[in-house]
């Protein structure tokens, strides 16, 4: 995937590019192209572009990234808390950041929304927002660090995820909590269980003491101050406790899967 990503043209959406290319074809070719797995990879073959990075380099990098996952899991200290800050340190305005513009951010109706709980849990009941709001909440002021390098300090309030996992009878020996979100293109992300059980990992309902605004992930975000920002899901729709590595939106494209801070 990393190899394909490297072929992307900044400012050109790959999905739209593939769609446009398919449109430009005669009907039969288009059907075959789509049936054959329309992808940027297929498109590069079609246009005769050269894939310059060698496959072996890609494999080596992928293996090294897995090795780095293991190293990070090994040095992850479940008792080490992310530094906290005073209110005065909060970054204002806190940046909106996603792979889409704010106008395209998901709009979730809080009245209809229910958090779906699946997988290795005793109680698979779905939770309404009102029910979740009744759980004990704590506030944290921590630094959000983006994979791009910038950082910003924010104030998040919500229920520690480990309390919720206990409440629903999750098998905490499972390897992952896998989150699925309402983002366009279906953002999802796996969170290793050790991090899910970290005291600061939070089901967030408020930002700066106000109901979580749409920009920051209404109705619910998972705040993980021990992970890079892209592993802090917003607009969460469901959580699955699982032993299977189900991949993630960014992880599948080549960002390191553990990406711990």
């Amino acid at each position, binding site marked *: 995937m*990393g190899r394909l*990503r*490297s*072929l*992307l043209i900044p400012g050109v959406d790959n999905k739209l590019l593939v769609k446009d290319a398919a449109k430009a074809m005669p009907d039969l070719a288009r059907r075959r192209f789509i049936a054959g797995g329309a992808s940027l990879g297929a498109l590069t073959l079609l246009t005769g572009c050269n894939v310059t*990075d060698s496959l072996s380099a890609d494999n*080596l*990098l*992928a293996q*090294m*990234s897995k090795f*780095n996952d293991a190293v990070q899991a090994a*040095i*992850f*200290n479940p008792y*080490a*808390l*992310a*530094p906290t800050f005073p209110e005065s340190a909060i970054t204002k305005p806190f940046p909106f950041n996603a792979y889409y513009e704010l106008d395209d951010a998901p709009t979730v109706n809080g009245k209809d929304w229910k958090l779906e709980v699946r997988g290795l849990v005793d109680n698979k009941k779905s939770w309404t927002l009102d029910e979740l709001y009744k759980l004990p909440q704590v506030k944290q002021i921590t*630094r959000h*660090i*983006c*994979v*791009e*390098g*910038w*950082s910003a300090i924010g104030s998040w309030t919500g229920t520690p995820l480990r309390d919720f996992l206990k409440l629903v009878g999750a098998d905490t020996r499972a390897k992952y909590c896998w989150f699925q979100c309402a983002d366009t293109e279906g953002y999802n992300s796996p969170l290793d269980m050790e991090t899910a059980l970290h005291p600061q990992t939070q089901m967030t309902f408020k930002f700066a003491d106000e109901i979580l605004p749409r920009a920051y992930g209404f109705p619910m975000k998972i705040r993980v*101050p*021990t992970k890079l920002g892209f592993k802090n899901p917003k607009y969460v729709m469901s959580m699955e406790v699982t032993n299977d590595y189900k991949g993630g939106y*960014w992880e599948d*494209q*080549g*960002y*390191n899967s553990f990406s*711990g*801070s």
Partner: protein
Amino acid sequence: MSSMTISDHHPAAAAKVIQPAWVRAMHWANAVAIVVMITSGWQIYNASPLFKFSFSSSITLGGWLGGGLLWHFAAMWLLMVNGLLYLVTGLATGRFRRKLLPITPSGVIADTKAALTFKLSHGDLSKYNNVQKLLYAGIIVVGIVIVLSGLSIWKPVQLQYLTALFGGYDIARYVHFTCMALICAFLVVHVALALLVPKSLRAMIIGR
């Protein structure tokens, strides 16, 4: 071949190995690591530039942020393991002490003057002049600081005391960038002088 033809002043020095095998192996391993680290680092920098410029995509490695990160976090192991072995061997064999010390301010000034007026002797490559000593000792320190600042950016929670030592996450990024700039400046001088005195390059390849 007589050593006399190479140097009149230090016949014994010219015949002996100037750069032992371990120095040469680690030097070139480090050269590969540092070039990968710098070019992939530029790619990462471009995702969120600290200053009002970006690096041209023609000189960055990885193609996009994710690719740059993969290269950076792969090559860092070569840089760190090789660098650590180099430090341990350099200290244990006494090479650092023998080659890099003493450095005196008056010596640095005198050798800088000699270099700028092309009067600096390159007769004995096994002995560094004061400017070389300063630059080589300095770049080792910069190498240590760039690794430590890099670790504090990578692990600002797990290694939070290290990050705090640099004045926090955001300042650590500037430290990391500054060290990169210093290494690039060093490389310009280092490569230019190696080409000006080709026998020094030969010594780093075949040892003599």
